[in-house]
């Protein structure tokens, strides 16, 4: 028999076992519970590091924008700027997040060639006492002024019309009441630091596709001194044009100061394709007696309220005319341009007169008699041809009136006084058949004279009008195939521009108070800085419409930065004018279109961008043209045509495109506009891209373009951060 003490010991052991089991279970429960909490804590901790780094990057972005640090952040080749060191990040309640601190660095990275917007790369390290736990990188990009369809560094009173992109004013923006049939439409956001006032209501109220923002943050406007460096860079490619000094005379020792620049798009290698490098400049130096008019402006137009230009103006006689499609060899046809004066030369009679099938416009013998008379009615008849237009002096189309040859020969090297006879004068013997001007018939030396009734020069009146300035930079190995043209075409980019440092910048120096006359067809991407004002005598277009959906956006880009105004000239024949008087009065449509088309971003640092003579009454009463893009069912015609911009207008001071004149027009009731030019703005797809004209100015605003997580070991020390940032320099971001 066992003792009771032994039984008690057994129970005690059992109880102890049970107690231990229960304790084990309790511990297990505690362990599982704490394991779950630890798991959650670990996840929360990691999230905390990540959010701290992201928050620090947002704070860095705010600082860069608030204090305009873009210009002071160093290139990544140097030591990066440390924006924050040991920063404590607070949560939404303002409480410091414990045990987490952040370091933040910034440097300029990415593209260094100016074609793409610059990039600021910010790197944030989140760390605790055990070291760096999380690294986040953000790429920030300043906003280019080319992003804006209209930017004004002051107050604006504008409308009606469509603004095809982003618009901003550092001031108040007042929208003109458009009346019941016209409208104000903003296809992107309209912002203003002051108030935005829509003077229309109901049906006349403006449409804002992407809203408005009053009281917006001011965007500081730049000064010219910021861009003085462009002159040096442009000079490296032979594209620093000094138009303040006398150039090299090509004939007769003429004093040929700089005058005018024209963009030329030319199939230089003749392969039938317009390639990126086939963009050129033509620089025309006008002789002293013609500098004031630059070979483009009609006389006596500047101050008259209703100027009626004379049909005998030599710009009209020599630079305005008409195209004719005429039979050529082999069953083909050829287009010829004949200025008004050339219609009177008998040598061209057989070409102009044609009723053959395929000829356009057809001209009968009787009609030729009308066209070739030395009368105002004849000028009217020529310039009412559907193919009529005017060209600035130096245009290859003006060969019949500006190219002079040696008598009885067709030699036209044109460097001596012996060449006294205009092309096509009847005294010459044609060797290869007469022909009119074409896009390749350049003349190096431009001459002019007082024309007689028969189209020939009066004795002793021959004078040098000007000359094309040859390119002084380095030509590339792929030179222009046409040797006659080669020397006059200033290549904007490789392969025809042989400079290895070509950055797409053109600098133009003009005399103090002077202006550059700029027009033409651009191929390529350039930014032109002009140390004065700019007058637009004719259209500036890209070689294809920037909104042509079959080509990539930003195929061509023009950034024009002028210190003073950029304006459509008053007396330029490419605007619509009343010419002549009485029965011979007609509308001069020197550009061949009602639209005065501008492709590009035009920026005036101290003045305005728009139309000169906005209050002058130019067009005749009965020959109004509808401003294209508008509905012609409403009476919104304009005698002045349309200022049609695809791109941006960036200006210091707003200038109206037209004014309402009492008794002449009243926009609110949609009657015709008889002054200035109607405004039409088109959407440019390039505005939505990150590209910009080379080195075009950027605003003080920046935006985040990308946020990337970096492996901790790649950037957990200052030296690794610097190494990492350097690797981004010159890389596309």
């Amino acid at each position, binding site marked *: 028999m066992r003792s009771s003490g032994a039984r008690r010991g057994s129970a005690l052991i059992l109880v102890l076992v049970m107690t231990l089991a229960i304790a084990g279970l309790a511990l297990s429960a505690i362990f599982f519970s704490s394991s779950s909490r630890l798991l959650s804590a670990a996840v929360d901790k990691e999230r905390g590091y990540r959010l701290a780094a992201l928050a620090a990057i947002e704070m860095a972005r705010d600082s860069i924008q608030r204090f305009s640090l873009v210009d002071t952040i160093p290139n990544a080749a140097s030591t990066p700027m440390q924006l924050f060191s040991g920063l404590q990040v607070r949560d939404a309640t303002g409480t410091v997040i414990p045990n987490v601190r952040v370091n933040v660095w910034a440097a300029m990275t990415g593209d260094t060639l100016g074609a793409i917007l610059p990039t600021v790369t910010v790197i944030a390290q989140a760390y605790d006492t055990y070291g760096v736990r999380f690294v986040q990188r953000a790429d920030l990009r300043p906003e280019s002024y080319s992003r804006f369809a209209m930017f004004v560094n002051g107050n604006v009173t504008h409308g009606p019309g469509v603004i095809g992109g982003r618009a901003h004013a550092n001031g108040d923006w007042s929208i003109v009441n458009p009346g019941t049939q016209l409208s104000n439409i903003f296809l992107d956001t309209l912002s203003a630091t002051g108030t935005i006032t829509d003077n229309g209501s109901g049906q006349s109220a403006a449409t804002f596709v992407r809203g408005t923002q009053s009281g917006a943050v001011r965007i500081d406007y730049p000064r010219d001194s910021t861009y003085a460096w462009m002159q040096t860079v442009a000079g490296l490619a032979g594209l620093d044009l000094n138009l303040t000094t006398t150039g090299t005379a090509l004939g007769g020792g003429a004093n040929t100061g700089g005058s005018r620049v024209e963009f030329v798009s030319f199939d230089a290698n003749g392969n039938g394709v317009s390639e990126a490098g086939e963009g050129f400049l033509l620089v025309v130096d006008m002789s002293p007696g013609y500098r004031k008019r630059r070979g483009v402006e009609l006389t006596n137009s500047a101050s008259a309220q209703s100027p009626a230009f004379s049909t005998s103006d030599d710009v009209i006689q020599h630079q305005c005319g008409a195209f004719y499609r005429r039979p050529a060899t082999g069953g083909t046809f050829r287009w010829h341009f004949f200025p008004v004066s050339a219609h009177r030369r008998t040598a061209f009679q057989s070409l102009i007169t044609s009723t053959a099938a395929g000829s356009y416009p057809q001209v009968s013998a009787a009609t030729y008699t009308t066209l070739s008379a030395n009368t105002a009615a004849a000028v009217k008849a020529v310039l009412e041809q559907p*193919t009529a237009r005017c060209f600035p002096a130096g245009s290859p189309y003006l060969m019949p009136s500006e190219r002079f040859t040696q008598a009885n020969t067709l030699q036209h090297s044109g460097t001596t006084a012996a060449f006294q006879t205009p092309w096509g004068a009847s005294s010459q013997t044609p060797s290869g058949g007469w022909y009119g001007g074409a896009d390749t018939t350049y003349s190096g030396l431009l001459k002019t004279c007082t024309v007689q009734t028969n189209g020939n020069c009066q004795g002793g009146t021959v004078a040098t009008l000007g000359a094309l300035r040859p390119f002084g930079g380095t030509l590339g190995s792929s030179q222009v195939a046409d040797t006659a043209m080669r020397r006059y075409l200033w290549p904007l980019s490789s392969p025809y521009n042989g400079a290895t440092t070509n950055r797409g910048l053109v600098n133009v120096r003009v005399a103090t108070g002077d202006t550059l006359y700029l027009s033409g067809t651009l191929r390529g991407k350039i930014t032109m800085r002009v140390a004065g004002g700019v007058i637009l005598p004719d259209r500036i277009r890209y070689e294809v419409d920037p909104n042509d959906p079959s080509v990539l956006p930003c195929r061509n880009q023009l950034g024009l930065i002028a210190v003073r105004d950029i304006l459509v000239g008053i007396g330029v024949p490419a605007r619509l004018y009343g010419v002549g008087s009485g029965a011979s009065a007609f509308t001069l449509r020197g550009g061949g279109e009602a639209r005065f088309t501008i492709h590009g971003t035009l920026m005036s640092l101290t003045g305005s961008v728009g139309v000169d003579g906005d209050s002058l009454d130019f067009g005749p009463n009965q020959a109004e043209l509808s401003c294209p893009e508008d509905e012609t069912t409403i009476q919104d015609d304009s005698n002045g045509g349309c200022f049609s911009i695809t791109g941006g207008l960036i200006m210091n001071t707003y200038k109206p495109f037209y004014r309402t004149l009492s008794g002449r027009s009243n926009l609110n009731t949609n009657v015709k506009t008889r002054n200035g030019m109607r405004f039409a703005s088109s959407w440019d797809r390039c505005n939505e891209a990150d590209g910009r004209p080379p080195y075009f100015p950027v605003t003080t605003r920046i935006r985040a373009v990308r946020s990337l997580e970096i492996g901790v070991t790649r950037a957990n020390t200052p030296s690794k951060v610097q190494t990492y940032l350097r690797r981004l320099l010159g890389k596309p971001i």
Partner: protein
Amino acid sequence: MTLTAAVFAITFPFIKSQVAAVGRGAGRTDADQVARYAVMMIDRDLRRASADSGQPLLVLAGPRAITFTADLVATDTTGTDAVDIDAGVSTTLSTAWLPANAATLPLTTRSYPTVTYRDRLGAVSLRETISYWLKPDTVTGRTDLFVLWRRVNAGDSVVVVRSLVLPTDTAFFSYQRPDTATVGGVLTSSLRTIAAARLPLYWDSVAVDSIRSVTIRATGRYVDTQTREETQRTLFGTTMLTNAPGRLLVGCGAAPTAPGSPSATLASGNGALLEAKVNWTASSDDARNGGARDVRGYVVEWSTDGGTTWRGLTTVSARQQSRYYWYHGLPIAGTASSVTARYRIRAIDCGGLTSTPTTVVSVTF
């Protein structure tokens, strides 16, 4: 003995309940870990999503599969966007997925990629394509149990986690895109979930570009081996796509309706210009006419070879007109005796989709 039995009798239910409690706790933790691990893995990759120009950020947005682009790893320091560098990784797993290795996207019949995506310098993109998808767990025989898989480009598929519960007709992934409302004349935006019926969306659809965040609904499961009691825990995780396209493609739906009544005339009479005056009536989706109100412009196309080849001329901005006009300055060039210019017009919406063209109109000069 009596005392011992009494102690056991008293403590056994307690111990049993404690064991059950510990089991449930372990089950909840296990289920929680399953769900959390699934969410974390996807979130960690997804928040690194980025793409080169022209490369889709989101390739596939499906209810039970997602495929996206991200630069997770590079083999050397030239991959400046990569999260990490690992020299030992195969180039097929550290650079863009190439058409030569194309394969069907998970749970779809669509093959990807169809083109070689490149960076701005023209080199093959260094960004990989990552896929996550759910497939039924065939081991258990249950239809609501799934396995989460992961794949980089067309590499091997790897199991991420098992024991995910997903009832029939329930989405694992949901997607949010901006939606707008005009409040007090001001356009305001908010994120709204895309209806499951609209999924999946593919890289070549416009709508996928509008996705700004992805929400994952993961339910982990644990079964007690003794009691066969099942524990489930559900977690939600939302990842913002910080590198999603900046362009707000609000309201860009199907292709717009075609404009109508085209007309082209050559100006005539004294002083007429050598221009073709082309005009047409607005699409019914033009804001002028109501409809989808997403027409951004009108593309004018022309042909000079009888309509065999067409090329664009310009895009005329939509401006809420009933009829649009465009004047084409006819080219003074060439050697032909006459030119017949044919025109047709398409509407284009904010997402870049174009309508069918209008009928063809022409002028001869």
